[in-house]
């Protein structure tokens, strides 16, 4: 047993006994063999003394127990770090920002409070995963579609609170935006319901966001101001059908027009699914199979054009594309809804994109109809067909692709143990994409990292449909020196990105302060405001110290890390 920093072993034992009195001793974990399971499985500091560590864990099964745990934490001044399911691998898993925290493990709070088929919403607890909610909807035969992330084993609430995104509809992908109603245990153990939940007797918490007064929900996302114990989320009537179309453009400079038209059709709601931009001449799209990747890597002519220092020769790629009937850039656009309606939407988009000189558009994969038949479902995730995640069906297909990339980058002296995501937001335009490709290419080169061919064909993701996430996955390895350099480069990339006006939308537990430090307008006014709120709500500074770079008073100025 190892007590949290600044807490005596005797006090820690008393607190653990108090926790056990609330949840039962079988749900308090203090053995090293148990607490190490709360470290990040993909940590770049895995196995090292300076890795983020937990001193213990306590797993309540209801809101009342969460309140009691927070009161005990205040009494004994025990640092607490709450998490839902801890599956945001690549962003730190469950690991606490402040080493030595006691984990408030909410996995046992896995109740689906309500699913309303006629008003299209669900209210869930933090331990409910995407698989849980989806399977419950199917089991009960509800004609509902839900927004879907991958991997599907993550928490519906945890993903939303960390500003995660789905792969499905434009109006529902932003998961925090798609929530309605929240129940929160404050750091002192008080319980608050936001929006309509504050009105006793109202059953509208998941149907009207605001209730009355300032809308405080946002304060509890990516924050350390409370423990969210319930949230409502909007669902949709079963979509009836799904289809996608692939637009290709022949020239290097066509990316600008391609993105402009995509903005037009998406921002007007006509294309209502998630667009994937790609560059067919520079590599397979996300979602392609291992075989396709292998075929790409063994294409000698293409490799001779792509495996060069810096941006490949556009004229050569245009020529290769023209001879092989593939585009320089592509946009895979998607539609959810009744079959006749999405057919018309597709036809409008097709015509709009074909106004770009030389562009061509074709249907991509078969139209999928709900409910899915066995035969249809068996085709999903196979090449040329939709991915489950696009249809709102849970899967770990994307996770599998990431594992493939991890394995491919694995070397004998630095075998892969996972990945680390760098996720800056950049403007949704071609000039910014080109700039980001150049900037992030250079910094990785400068740090001596090998960049596989295809870097300049990898386009950012449109989860947030009015901006781009320039997602970079770094390999985490068993080689401490390689990982140390990756960490150093990550910190440098945060600063370089900021110098161009780009900032991360979420980050790993190790870099929370680094990211907050670049959001520093007017002498860090945003952080100062967060600190005022922190001090007011959590005077003892017991909850999630250091999350989003917000430290309690006694740990500020470097006291925490």
């Amino acid at each position: 047993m190892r007590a949290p920093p600044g807490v005596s072993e005797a006090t820690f034992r008393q607190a653990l006994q108090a926790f056990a009195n609330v949840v039962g001793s079988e749900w308090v974990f203090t053995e090293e063999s148990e607490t190490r399971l709360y470290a990040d499985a993909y940590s770049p500091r895995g196995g090292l003394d300076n890795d983020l560590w937990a001193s213990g864990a306590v797993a309540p099964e209801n809101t009342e127990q969460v309140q009691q745990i927070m009161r005990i934490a205040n009494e004994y001044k025990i640092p607490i770090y709450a998490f839902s399911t801890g599956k945001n691998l690549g962003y730190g898993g469950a690991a606490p920002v402040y080493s030595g925290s006691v984990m408030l493990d909410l996995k046992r709070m896995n109740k689906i409070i309500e699913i309303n088929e006629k008003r299209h919403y669900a209210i869930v607890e933090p331990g409910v995963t995407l698989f849980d909610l989806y399977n419950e909807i199917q089991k009960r035969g509800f004609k509902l579609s839900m927004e879907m992330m991958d991997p599907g084993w993550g928490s519906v609430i945890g993903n939303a609170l960390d500003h995660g995104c789905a792969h499905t509809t434009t109006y529902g992908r932003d998961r925090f935006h798609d929530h309605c109603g929240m129940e929160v245990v404050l750091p002192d153990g008080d319980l608050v319901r936001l929006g309509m939940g504050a009105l006793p007797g109202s059953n509208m918490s998941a149907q009207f966001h605001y209730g009355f007064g300032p809308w405080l929900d946002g304060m509890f996302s990516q924050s350390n101001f409370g423990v969210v114990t319930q949230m409502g989320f909007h669902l949709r009537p079963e979509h009836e059908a799904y289809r996608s179309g692939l637009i290709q453009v022949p020239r290097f400079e066509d990316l600008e027009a391609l993105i402009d038209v995509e903005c037009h059709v998406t921002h007007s709601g006509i294309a209502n699914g998630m667009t994937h931009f790609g560059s067919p001449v520079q590599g397979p799209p996300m979602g392609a199979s291992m075989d396709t990747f292998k075929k790409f890597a063994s294409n000698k002519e293409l490799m001779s054009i792509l495996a060069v220092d810096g941006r490949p020769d556009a004229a050569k790629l245009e020529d290769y594309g023209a001879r092989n009937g593939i585009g320089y850039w592509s946009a895979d656009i998607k539609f959810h809804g009744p079959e006749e309606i999405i057919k018309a939407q597709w036809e409008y988009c097709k015509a709009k994109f074909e106004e770009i000189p030389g562009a061509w558009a074709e249907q991509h994969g078969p139209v999928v109809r709900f409910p899915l038949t066995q035969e249809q479902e068996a085709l999903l995730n196979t090449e040329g067909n939709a991915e489950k995640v696009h249809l709102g069906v849970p899967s770990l297909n994307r996770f599998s692709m990431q594992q493939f990339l991890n394995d491919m980058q694995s070397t004998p002296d630095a075998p892969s143990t996972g990945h680390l995501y760098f996720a800056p937001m950049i403007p949704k335009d071609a000039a910014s994409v080109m700039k980001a490709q150049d900037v992030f290419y250079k910094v990785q080169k400068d740090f001596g990292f090998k960049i596989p061919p295809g870097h300049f064909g990898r386009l950012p993701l449109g989860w947030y449909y009015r901006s781009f996430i320039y997602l970079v996955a770094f390999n985490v390895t068993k080689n401490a020196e390689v990982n140390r350099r990756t960490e150093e480069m990550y910190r440098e990339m945060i600063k370089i990105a900021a110098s161009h006006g780009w900032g991360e939308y979420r980050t790993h537990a190790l870099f929370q302060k680094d990211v907050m430090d670049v959001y520093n307008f007017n002498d860090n006014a945003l952080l100062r405001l967060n600190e005022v709120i922190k001090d007011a709500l959590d005077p003892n500074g017991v909850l999630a110290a250091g999350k989003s770079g917000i430290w309690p008073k006694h740990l500020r100025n470097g006291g925490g890390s």
Partner: protein
Amino acid sequence: MKVKLFCGSFLALALAACGGAPSSDVAASNESPSISDSGELWDTSLTFGFSASEDATGLERGQQVYDQWCAICHADGVGMAGTDSLKRTYMMAGITDMSPILTERTDLTPEYIELVVRQGIKSMPYFRKTEVSDEDLALIGAYLAQNNPDYQEE
């Protein structure tokens, strides 16, 4: 409510005993019209991830916990992170006589399963005890060791 699941012929797993009550408190108020015994309509057999039944015991529960936590990556089919990773591992190592699908393996022991689940391996993370309890982990081990001729269940 017991839900009978269709067993796709393309699946190596026998799933007839799967399903059952969710771990949540939801009152399952209506029989699902979208799940049919004939397998004509939508069905969870390709999705896995459903919670194990509180009523099941022994190997039956072992299979259900396996389906909930392991089959989502280790079943046969496309987009299976564990199965795909094992295929790559065996290919690189030149191993041709080992199935990448865990339920087809004849060499697994409960001890090895416990080691991998609590330590993780390559990109597979370790699992906490609030996810897979020690008791359930032992049942998964017994379930996967069934085909191992060297393993004698006590």
